[in-house]
């Protein structure tokens, strides 16, 4: 999930005025009404001719898009974004009528609150049955009305076991003085605050001014120890030999493990959290039927497997998992042991305080 990197490219694109936009889709009149969830009918509703997919960069393999177009004749315009927030602002600005977006769980929660998502007609998405039941009915979409999980993952610790022999169990073992200058961290204020909260015995979503004040001294220490903050490609620092330990996305950790087994992945004992990136349909989408057909398409085990092979996060599609090789399934970063894990919730305006806290600590570094 090269989120930040593509954020940079996006912003540079703005500065140099070279951001391309797919042409707006002609109104797909064949789509169902604004309610979007036309009751299952005998005559199948027809999809529009084009599908505007707005998704993370480096997250949807081209062969999946090509396969879908070939089968359905629907042309897919794949526009990418670098962060949930970027997606939100473009979606809410209303420039293009996106048919399908790929937000993370806390953004789905916020969008549902604001009534910005169209409910899914499950009769058009029968393959939803392949999804791990444990990922259904979660807090951000308790009634399974709006989202289809794409990939899930954890945030955890990677250790270069050639260099570090001490047992590493949790965040507190990572952020030690003796590893100063050998640590990589995600460059993500919300994540860092969550780790500090978990390391202090609090819940990752318990973000209140009091709790922020409580974890501030700990975070201040941590920030001083870190060599690189990188959300785009934290694996690079490991591969370059610039760091030996760090807290990264599980997908990155999985790729490191594939590269060399010396990179072991550890879920922090203080509590690990889960992120779920899902597909959802904005209520303004002109081609809702096409969007649902796409959802169903990617839920096919053989298609979902393609995604997994390219981006080894945790595949929520149980049927697809059966098609993976034992090696892929044995990757501890992709498929860590089961356990109770929290997901991020929408925290509203206090996000600014989170950001300020981390910026402040970095600046006084």
């Amino acid at each position, binding site marked *: 999930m090269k989120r930040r990197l593509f954020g*940079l490219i996006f912003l540079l694109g703005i500065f140099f005025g070279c951001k391309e936009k797919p042409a707006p889709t002609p109104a797909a009149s064949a789509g169902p009404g604004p309610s979007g969830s036309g009751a299952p009918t005998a005559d199948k509703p027809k999809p529009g001719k084009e599908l505007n997919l707005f998704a993370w960069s480096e997250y949807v393999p081209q062969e999946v898009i090509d396969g879908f177009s070939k089968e359905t004749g629907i042309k897919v315009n794949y526009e990418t974004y670098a962060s949930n927030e970027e997606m939100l*602002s473009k979606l809410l600005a209303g420039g293009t009528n996106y048919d399908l977006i790929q937000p993370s769980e806390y953004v789905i929660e916020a*969008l549902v609150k*604001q009534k910005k998502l169209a409910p899914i007609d499950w009769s058009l998405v029968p393959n939803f049955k392949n999804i791990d039941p444990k990922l259904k009915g979660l807090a951000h979409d308790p009634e399974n009305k709006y989202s289809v999980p794409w990939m899930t993952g954890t945030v955890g610790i990677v250790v270069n076991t050639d260099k570090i022999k001490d047992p590493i169990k949790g965040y507190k073992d990572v952020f030690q003085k003796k590893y100063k200058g050998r640590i990589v961290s995600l460059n993500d204020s*919300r994540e860092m605050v969550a780790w500090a909260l978990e390391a202090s015995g609090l819940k990752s979503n318990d973000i209140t001014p009091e709790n922020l004040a409580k974890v501030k001294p700990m975070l201040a220490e941590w920030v001083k120890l870190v060599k690189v903050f990188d959300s785009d490609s934290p694996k690079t620092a490991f591969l370059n030999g*610039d760091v030996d330990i760090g807290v990264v996305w599980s997908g990155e950790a999985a790729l490191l493990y594939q590269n060399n087994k010396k990179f072991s992945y550890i879920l922090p004992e203080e509590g690990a959290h889960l992120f779920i990136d899902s597909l959802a349909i904005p209520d303004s989408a002109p081609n809702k039927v096409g969007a649902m057909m796409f959802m169903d398409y990617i839920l096919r085990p053989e298609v979902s497997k393609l995604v997994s092979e390219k981006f080894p996060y945790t595949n929520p599609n149980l049927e697809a998992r059966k098609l993976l090789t034992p090696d892929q399934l044995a990757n501890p970063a992709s498929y860590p042991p089961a356990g109770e894990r929290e997901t991020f919730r929408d925290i509203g305006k206090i996000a600014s305080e989170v950001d300020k806290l981390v910026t402040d600590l970095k600046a006084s570094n």
Partner: protein
Amino acid sequence: MTPTAGLPDTRGAERAPGLRGWLLMAPLLAWLGAFVIAPTLIMLVYSFCDRDELGQVVFTFSWSNYTRVFDPTYLKILLKSVYYAAITTAICLVVGYPVAYWVGRAPERVRNKLLALIMIPFWTSFLIRTYAWMTILKSEGPLNSLLLYLGMISTPLDILYTPTAVVIGLVYSYLPFMILPIYGSVEKLDNALVEAAFDLGAGPVRAFASVIAPLTRPGIVAGVMLVFIPAIGMFAITDLMGGARVPMIGNVIQNQFGQARDWPFGAALGMTVLLLFAATFWLTTKKDPSAT
């Protein structure tokens, strides 16, 4: 009252531009309006607004974004940005001036080739060049390997993800912006003036200080502005080569429009920096005595 009243544009030079003048300027004005003035006005409006839960801009008037700008956290970052930008500018000047001078004095047929060499890096994406630098500077990269091989160091130098790396990246990125305007001034510099200085007893240093530098001042000023101002706002290099450890004001602003989802505050920061630039510009151009 004159018989030539029917031909107003023949006397247009010292007066307000005539219709033809406006027509000629129209594309530029349209460009400025659409891509400079309008976005700036939008930012100005945003900077007094508020944000809602989703991060959408809410149009209510408030000064709070500006009071937050003057929070010590952000002031400290701004100062640090100015500091790094100043170091970058100084290095660019010291490194770039001799290059520009040398190219500007080279025979014409060589000159264009040398200029092309300076421009060639622009043919590649900025990010790719930055990644190339990261590869060069990393612990197990070619630079360290070379130095180790030559026995000049015994353990790899820690350059990548340090402020040194940031300055290297900034200097690399902005050096051409220093070289080109200085080159423009040097090329216009009459060689006879340099010779006259030598002839009158000035050694290289004093010829430079008393004749060459003052006469290429416009290029130096332009180069300094072209490097200093964008260097303050640069965020990509700080993120990539500095490991995002030391935020610069550009990173903070970028973050407001991205992860932090606080456009109004980002806009307020941006407007403040813009004002700062305008003030710097005004100061440097006002004190130009060599304007003859």
